[in-house]
């Protein structure tokens, strides 16, 4: 076995040191009737690197990779170009094979990186403080609602219609068990986000309002207007963002009245990976709320010689200290994805992020205008960043399936996201990024034209 360094000679010598007759003597506490006598039946034995790689490659070939298609999927996961150096850096063993930095003297690499990451996220979101990451956007969203409940001492949350349906499902699943009251609704196919409808649903017993920005249909809600109304009711505004690149072009939620900003960081540095691992981002605008935050926080300090250094801090919020009184049960988070995000963001910098966002928006505008020329297609949105919704006048899910056979991944149908909502069935969410070529847009337009007519 190529991963097991002990030789049989070692094993015998070690058993002798221990004073055990054989290996089974070390498993004496396992009741004999439960102990397995040999390898579990019906499973293959060990295999060479070459054989395993061949098997896994065969499975991977059964998938249509985005690079091999004209690709327009988004809805919470986005395909961007990740510079080669990002993947190189995250594969350095000192990052890849380190543990949570519990011994800060020999983990300054991870800790400084986390401090830089937290600072980048705080700035991107227009917030004061960001944590060292959560599992993903959907779980961060629930944690934010939970935190708003602790701050306001109220247990009702209002979810906007434009919140990703998976996020809604996660929140509703958790709330079922915690007893929180969740008000949610599915989106309406309207060109502009209806802030007034959301404000009309606000009540005094709400802990928070959760608004996705841009929303699931790609629209841009007026956050300041919603924030003012929520604050009037004594509620916090939680903003969820699933496309961080957008914040290179549109105003940061923290600058528009949001109290807690959460999101999915996957779009920067992480890659699609069929949905995970991703990167939950979590930030607050008011530093006073830091002690109610979930997750790890990295802070600056000095060492015994007065040199600057970094440590995990404020851990009295966390499960390993507070146990059942912790702000969350989270332990392992998304450290390596945070590194990927931070490296990619460092490569971009302000200038690169602005340019990337501009290029995404330009191509998305181009795509929207081109698709609008296809007979049978209507573009829904007045405002959007790199993702918008079109109506096809027929079951969009079936159209997506048909186009996939020709190597066109046309987008995410609303039928996939809201399987039981007939009135949404002709909607298709189309995402366009810098990886989309103008030729891809032509390909999609032509394919839609052919299939719709």
């Amino acid at each position, binding site marked *: 076995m190529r991963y097991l360094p002990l030789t049989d000679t070692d094993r015998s010598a070690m058993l002798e040191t221990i004073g055990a007759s054989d290996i089974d003597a070390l498993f004496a506490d396992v009741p004999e009737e439960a102990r397995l006598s040999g390898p579990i039946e019906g499973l293959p034995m060990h295999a060479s690197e070459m054989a395993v790689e061949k098997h*896994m490659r065969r499975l991977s070939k059964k998938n249509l990779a985005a690079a091999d298609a004209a690709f327009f999927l988004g809805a919470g996961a986005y395909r961007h170009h990740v510079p080669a150096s990002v993947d190189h850096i995250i594969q350095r063993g000192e990052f890849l094979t380190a543990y949570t930095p519990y011994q800060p003297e020999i983990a300054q690499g991870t800790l400084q990186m986390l401090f830089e990451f937290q600072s980048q996220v705080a700035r991107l979101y227009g917030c004061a403080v960001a944590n060292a990451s959560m599992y993903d956007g959907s779980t961060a969203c629930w944690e934010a609602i939970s935190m708003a409940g602790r701050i306001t001492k109220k247990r009702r949350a209002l979810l906007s219609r434009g919140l990703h349906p*998976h996020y809604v499902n996660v929140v509703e699943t958790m709330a079922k068990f915690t007893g929180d009251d969740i008000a949610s609704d599915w989106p309406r196919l309207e060109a502009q986000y209806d802030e007034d409808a959301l404000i009309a649903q606000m009540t005094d017993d709400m802990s928070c309002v959760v608004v996705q920005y841009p929303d699931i249909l790609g629209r841009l809600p007026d956050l300041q207007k919603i924030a003012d109304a929520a604050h009037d009711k004594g509620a916090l505004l939680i903003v969820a963002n699933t496309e961080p690149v957008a914040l290179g072009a549109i105003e940061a939620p923290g600058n528009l009245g949001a109290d807690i900003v959460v999101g999915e960081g996957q779009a920067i540095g992480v890659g699609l990976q069929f949905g995970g*691992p991703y990167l939950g981002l979590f930030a607050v605008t008011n530093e006073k709320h830091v002690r109610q935050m979930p997750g790890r926080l990295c802070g600056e300090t000095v060492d015994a010689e007065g040199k600057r250094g970094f440590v995990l801090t404020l851990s009295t919020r966390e499960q390993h200290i507070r146990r059942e009184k912790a702000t969350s049960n989270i332990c392992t988070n998304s450290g390596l994805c945070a590194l990927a995000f931070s490296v990619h963001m460092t490569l971009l910098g302000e200038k690169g992020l602005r340019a990337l966002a501009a290029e995404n928006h330009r191509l998305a505008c181009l795509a929207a205008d081109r698709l609008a020329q296809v007979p049978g297609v209507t573009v829904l949105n007045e*405002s959007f960043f790199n993702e918008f919704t079109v109506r096809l006048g027929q079951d969009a899910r079936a159209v997506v399936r048909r186009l996939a056979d020709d190597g066109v991944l046309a987008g995410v149908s609303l039928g996939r996201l809201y399987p039981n909502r007939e009135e949404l069935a002709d909607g298709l969410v189309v995402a366009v990024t810098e990886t989309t070529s103008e030729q891809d847009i032509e390909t999609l337009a032509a394919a839609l034209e052919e299939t719709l007519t």
Partner: protein
Amino acid sequence: MNAPNKSGWKPESPVGHEGVHEGPATVTGNRALMLEEPLIFEIGTTETTGVDFEFAGNLDLAGVEQPAKPTQNVPSRLGSHARKGEIGLPGLTEPETVRHYTRLSRQNYAIDLGLFPLGSCTMKHNPRLNEKVARMPGFADVHPLQPVDTVRGALEVMNELAHWLLKLTGMHGVAMSPKAGAHGELCGILCIRAALEARGDARKVILVPESAHGTNPATAAFAGYEVEDIPATAEGRVDLEALKQRLGPDVAGVMITNPNTCGLFERDMKAISDAVHAAGGFVYCDGANFNAIVGKVRPGDLGVDAMHINLHKTFSTPHGGGGPGSGPVVLSEALAPFGPLPYTARDGDGVVHLVEEENADEFEHPRAFGRMTAFHGQMGMFTRALTYILSHGADGLKQVAEDAVLNANYVLRSLDEVLDAPFGPSGPCMHEALFSDKGFGEGMSTLDLAKGLIDEGFHPMTMYFPLVVHGAMLVEPTETESKAGLDQFIAALRSVAERAKAGDESLKASPYYAPRRRLDETQAARKPVLAWKEPSPPGGPAAPSEVGGR
């Protein structure tokens, strides 16, 4: 004492801290290969970027340069939403970026550098084939919402891994979506709650041993339960009789770690399960320590109802400095119907399906308690874990458990005459050896020993956990260490332990040779600095901290 390695080589002139020649101070603060590195905010600028674009866009956005040759320009659809003002994100070119992170990386300890004996963390070697496989475009470059016909291979990976996990644990069903161990715990506890609610049984209490990971009580509380302690026996195991006394109609279940955090197998596990079941409750097993028993015993045979498996422990997916993890949960026949969506299922024709909200009925899974995460779970971890499992096979995984347990017992018995092993006399340990600070010199602590071990070139063991042992030191070497490597570690630990027992004051100020000396954690918590701020001008007032009081 210096341990020879396999070839018999040993350092020429071992030196203690008192033997070091302090050289002159350097202008840079660097010491040869030990390099200081500023923050990106101190070296980058908002004008610098390490990414070139084919075309940089031509929209009227603040801070964007006009492109040389726009192909097609279009009016912006951002309306009034365009971002104003500087974001304040520093940029570096590629060479600067690579150097920054490479220099930072050298301030980290890692498994690739040496033994990483963190108890209950299973820091084993991370095979590089796993990394290669996870990066195959068919896995890395697929979107979770692609039509299922275009991702059958990904679903097959999930299904094949699920099959292995079920076979290895002897369980009935598996929820693949939980994102990490604590998320898996939550999944298991929610299954228990859903099952109880389905029979109209509103039980309020979850019993957790004092020696449990902090995530156990935190999870039970997060799921809406009251948490009560289960007493332990003097030999470090669950007190079965005391547990039986506490069981009753208000107890929803127990959370037991097996092997437990004292490194011991819970001999009475089956009797515990039987008693809990007889009282109408369920048994949650924390599978953090599954590495000790994989291929040797199946939790399903011990009456367990739910157990999470940390793919980043037993199945070698990299810890990455704190994640990402992955925590699939295996479930008994009683709990499987309540497992969350989505999951995969193979039909009679061999086609693997993704079972989500819309087709749960079709796949006879109408009682799922809901969804725990967007999309389908940690695919990137599934590919790595399956690669690891296929590499080892049924025989190799059994050998993994045996070597892990052998290595831990070797450490235990090689050190138990110098360090106090509170449960040593009661028999062999499993995958981790537990020591206490009994016998240390006046004023010497486990922390001092740990920091001394850093100077010897090793990552310390888990400290002060489990809470049931004073000054606990939990050592988990894992199976991927050679005997020579263990001998070197044992010699280092023995030396530091002897210094702690002798009251060697120099230990109090260790580490001496790490990139940083001991860090002031009190200051970090009292005046938290959690994000970089531009320094105030010389002579000006320091930026006030607004973080609220405790």
